[in-house]
């Protein structure tokens, strides 16, 4: 997809399919949920890649499949010289040191019976990184790094607020000195004033420790703020990928346009003037996703071809990819494309994609 050599993670045609339990009992073919269905994506070293989409679009599944917390059905996840998707469990365990995750719910992701000191030292012990005094010093250093006082060491999670718990979760992820962190909705459960604190903390740590993030969120304002590039996921497929600035200022694919226009702006003057693209209906079920373009059932620009042809993720503008047959590099603005025309179908053979 891009030829730069500084990719830390390269995902190739990754699929995660879940068979639905009990569905094959009466001889009918089993239903399959295609949570992630052919995702290719490069994550560059040192960047924050934002991953957005509505609930059920597969963004958390994708994040977990990269780390093998969910087994991928097929495809590759290239990290350094390994394909994580095909490593043995034993070999994968060694790689986990470099790959960590921060969870959404700071209340559910910390063991309530362990002290903060035990929670943060557990990964250090697992990977035998330090013992005794060195371990104690390391845990203190980690707590200070995330803005918590070392006098909290003996306290339990319930004694902390949501924002502080999220800091503990971040300290635990950093304990093994990872290269890559999946941040799965890390601010969604937090108050507005605390969200800013955690976003700033994550960004500072990224710069200081040269970390790479996959930042998963449904909050486009937050994703836009922290990410260098943003990928938009819809029903298990990436439908748009671009730099954060351009995807917000000039979204190309109709779904991204609708998603961005749905975000309320904290300014009454802007809100009074703006015209919203309000999408009809809900996200369709991923069990039997719509044929062709998966978004065609809700798309205000859909034409007949959209329900037949599955659009590929194509470079429409420099470093700006979109999956929509109704636009092409020559005609990137869907508003100006002639009614019923699908320039993307003609341009298909020209554009090269991963």
């Amino acid at each position: 997809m891009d030829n730069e050599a500084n990719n830390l993670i390269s995902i190739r045609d990754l699929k995660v399919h879940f068979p639905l339990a009990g569905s094959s009992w009466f001889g009918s073919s089993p239903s399959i949920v295609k949570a992630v269905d052919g995702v290719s994506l490069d994550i560059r070293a040192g960047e924050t890649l934002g991953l957005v989409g509505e609930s059920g679009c597969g963004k958390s599944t994708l994040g977990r499949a990269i780390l093998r917390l969910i087994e991928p059905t097929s495809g590759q996840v290239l990290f350094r010289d390994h394909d994580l998707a095909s490593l043995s469990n034993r070999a994968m365990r060694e790689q986990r040191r470099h790959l960590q995750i921060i969870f959404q719910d700071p209340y559910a992701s910390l063991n309530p019976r362990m002290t903060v000191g035990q929670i943060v030292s557990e990964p250090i012990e697992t990977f035998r990184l330090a013992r005794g005094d060195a371990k104690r010093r390391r845990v203190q250093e980690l707590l200070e790094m995330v803005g918590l006082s070392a006098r909290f060491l003996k306290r339990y999670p319930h004694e902390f607020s949501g924002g502080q718990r999220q800091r503990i979760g971040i300290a635990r992820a950093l304990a093994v000195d990872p290269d890559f962190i999946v941040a799965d909705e890390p601010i969604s459960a937090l108050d507005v004033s605390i969200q800013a604190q955690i976003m700033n903390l994550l960004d500072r740590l990224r710069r200081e420790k040269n970390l790479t993030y996959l930042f998963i969120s449904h909050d486009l304002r937050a994703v836009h703020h922290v990410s260098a590039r943003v990928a938009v996921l819809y029903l298990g497929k990436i439908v748009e990928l671009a730099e954060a600035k351009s995807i917000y200022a000039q979204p190309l694919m109709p779904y991204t346009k609708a998603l961005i226009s749905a975000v309320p702006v904290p300014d009454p003057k802007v809100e009074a003037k703006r015209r919203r693209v309000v999408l009809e209906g809900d996200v369709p079920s991923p069990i039997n996703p719509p044929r062709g373009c998966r978004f065609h059932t809700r798309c205000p620009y859909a034409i007949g071809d959209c329900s037949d042809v599955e659009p590929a993720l194509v470079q429409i503008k420099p470093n700006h990819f979109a999956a929509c047959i109704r636009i092409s590099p020559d005609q990137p603005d869907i508003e100006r494309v002639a009614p019923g025309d699908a320039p993307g179908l003609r341009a298909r053979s020209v554009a090269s994609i991963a």
Partner: protein
Amino acid sequence: MNTNGNLLEVKDLRTYFETEDGVVKAVDGVSFEVRQGETLGIVGESGSGKSVANLSLMRLIAEPPGKIVSGSITFRGRDILKLSPREVRAIRGKQIAMIFQDPMTSLNPFMRISKQLMEVTRLHLGHSKGEAREHAIRMLEVVGIPDAEARIDSYPHEFSGGMRQRVIIAMALSCQPELLIADEPTTALDVTIQAQILELIKRLKGETGASVILVTHDLGVVAGMTDHIIVMYAGKVFERAPTSELFGQPGNPYTRGLLRSVPDPAAEQGNLYQIPGQPPDLARLPGACPFAPRCERAEEICRREFPPFVQLTSEHSSLCHFADEVFAESQEAA
């Protein structure tokens, strides 16, 4: 009905809870009014008291551990706090209706949608079974549920989150209430569904002329929906203003901090403004300004004395020792 056009007047409301840690003053001297046909936004973070204030309006505070200690809630000239439980029940759901955050837990999972909707109008409007069913179908159509007649006998789990919230709205509006309280109605929903539900509330409000109290933590949501806003922190009203004025010229450091900590897509990336520290422990509130430990503007007096509620313009007040100064700074910045 009041002579000054207020449908609802809340004066010096105090709702306290007895806990193991001591008395939690969840709502502590809150006053506001809702005019006929207007939308009032109540903004605050968790623990600010915004939900408890609204539960108090409906007399839905569990007692014990909670207790409405003092104040008055005047709705159409009658003090709700002085009514008998029976009189409150007659108002609740009929003249004042409420929508909650979680559309799954506010519907009974074992009861068909039809039965839950019909219950309301049979109780409050004395509908017969047939009338109630017809009315329920019409309400589902009003809130945009396709194929309402066929789907009315579904169970809640057969509906998506957005559809369930539509059912709740249909239920809340089925007796044409004069006041609709929507407590974080879109927080559990996706952003595209949130836009649908907000548009729906706006449209129905226009059609029915109902007044709305919209409770939320999202400043974006109140910006486009409300006429007036109150900002709550630690059980107190910190600022009260017409919506355009609150956003254009905030007079309280907390409001200003909240506004600045929302990422602005038009601005450059980089460090986001952050309010330092944690929300206060409501069982251990200081006698001084509860926001002082987190406030960039705080001086010695803020840590010593409780601030005054300073009137800045005819409709704009702020709880702050330096309200005038903050207000003037906001004007310069704008």
